[in-house]
């Protein structure tokens, strides 16, 4: 993996003439976890799509990219849906990228990656035979297998139960260390546990929230984490009047 770069995005985006965000200025620190927190519909996912090169229907004016690196081929993506191919085994899903590029599949490394996410026993099983948490671990293994310096996470833990979510957060935090991670989430607790940098995005503005002092992944019971989480929830609620 090459050195993880910083990311930048400044500009405005619209979808079918409806503005998604205007005058946004976002900087994502190199080799750190940046959590982009906001309620649904403020354009968080659009930002991820822009970095991933998947925003075909979004009209973007401005600048975006990675410092000293082409985004193309430097990005890995993990979404809320595990996006596993149901007809492939866990191992084959981890090797999907190689198959799709026509590279020689590195089975030994794929097995190693599956072991790191704790699924070496399940390598031959299909997604339907795995639990939601296990499927998301396979998706994490597939993301690691891609070995890209930039990792975009689109609410990857939001469909999991509380315990599995906390375990997945710890695991992802450990395994993706050193990469530039941009995590989109609507969960203040997740942002407070994981972010080295936290950006709160509302309808009109973005603001940087100072993260808790301790190292991520932080304990959910850390008073500092709880306070940050509470502050962010208050800011989110203040922004969205109840209709």
């Amino acid at each position, binding site marked *: 993996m090459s050195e993880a770069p910083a990311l930048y995005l400044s500009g405005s985006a619209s979808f079918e003439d409806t503005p998604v965000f205007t005058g946004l200025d976002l900087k994502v620190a190199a080799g750190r976890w940046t959590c982009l927190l906001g309620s649904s519909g403020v354009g968080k996912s659009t930002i991820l799509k822009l970095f991933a090169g998947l925003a075909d229907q979004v009209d973007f004016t401005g600048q975006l990219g990675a410092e000293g690196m082409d985004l193309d*081929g430097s990005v890995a993506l993990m979404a809320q849906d595990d996006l596993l191919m149901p*007809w492939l085994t866990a191992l084959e899903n981890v090797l999907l990228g190689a198959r799709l590029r026509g590279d020689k599949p590195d089975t030994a490394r794929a097995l190693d990656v599956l072991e790191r996410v704790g699924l070496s026993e399940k390598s031959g099983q299909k997604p339907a035979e795995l639990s939601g948490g296990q499927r998301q671990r396979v998706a994490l293994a597939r993301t690691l297998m891609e070995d890209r310096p930039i990792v975009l996470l689109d609410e990857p833990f939001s469909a999991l139960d509380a315990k599995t979510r906390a375990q997945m957060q710890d695991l992802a935090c450990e395994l993706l260390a050193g990469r530039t991670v941009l995590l989109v989430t609507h969960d203040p607790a997740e942002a407070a546990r994981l972010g080295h940098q936290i950006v709160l995005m509302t309808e009109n503005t973005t603001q940087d929230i100072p993260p808790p002092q301790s190292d991520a992944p932080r304990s959910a019971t850390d008073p500092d984490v709880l306070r940050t989480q509470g502050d962010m929830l208050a800011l989110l609620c203040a922004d969205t009047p109840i209709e």
Partner: protein
Amino acid sequence: MKSWQAGLASTLLGLAIWKAVVVIGDLPKFILPSPGLVAETLWKSRALIADNALVTSSEVLVGLFLGAVLGGLSAIGLAASPMARALVRPMLVFSQAVPVFALAPILTLWLGYGLWSKVAMALIIIYFPVTSSFFDALMRTNKDWLGLARVMGATPFRVMWHIRIPSALPGFASGLRLAAVYAPIGAIIGEWVGASKGLGYLMLLANGRAKIDLMFAALIVLAVLTLCLHAAVDLFCRRVLDRPS
């Protein structure tokens, strides 16, 4: 009641109604023969019927195979290329507006009285359902899978091969199930228009000679063959194509 019991009961009920219609209506055997007479004829003419059934079966199987292959390839071609879609889809729809019955004499003229005019007929009749159901499934590939593949740096050919085709196989299977029922219709129409062998030919011949019992016997064999073909195709589809989606 289990499904085989229900099937048996339903068959017996059908036979009973048939027999009752013959008895109550006092119908002569050249209008509607009784089930017993048809069974007797079926047994007596078994060699003749089997001989003709073999011909029809080969027409149907070759037609089904070629139709499945051609339909499958066409669907992939259409799904892969917007240009092909723009050019070919209107033609496909137009082809469905032409009654297939009307094509049979032309196919016999072009391909002769033998196997190939019937194969062509079966192929034409199943081509559209196979192509269209597979194509629709290919166009419905999960957009997020395609996005993931793009981020991974996939080539369109490999996306087609590793993602779009495997995910669309259940759609292909539903086309094949329809085709298994339609293909015999095509072959029989072909035989009616011009043939020297086959169950359709035998039915026409028996009808002309007022051997309605033989006609019914051939009809029953045709129906049973079609059911068997459908069951075999269904089994194949469930084992091979209908993977969890």
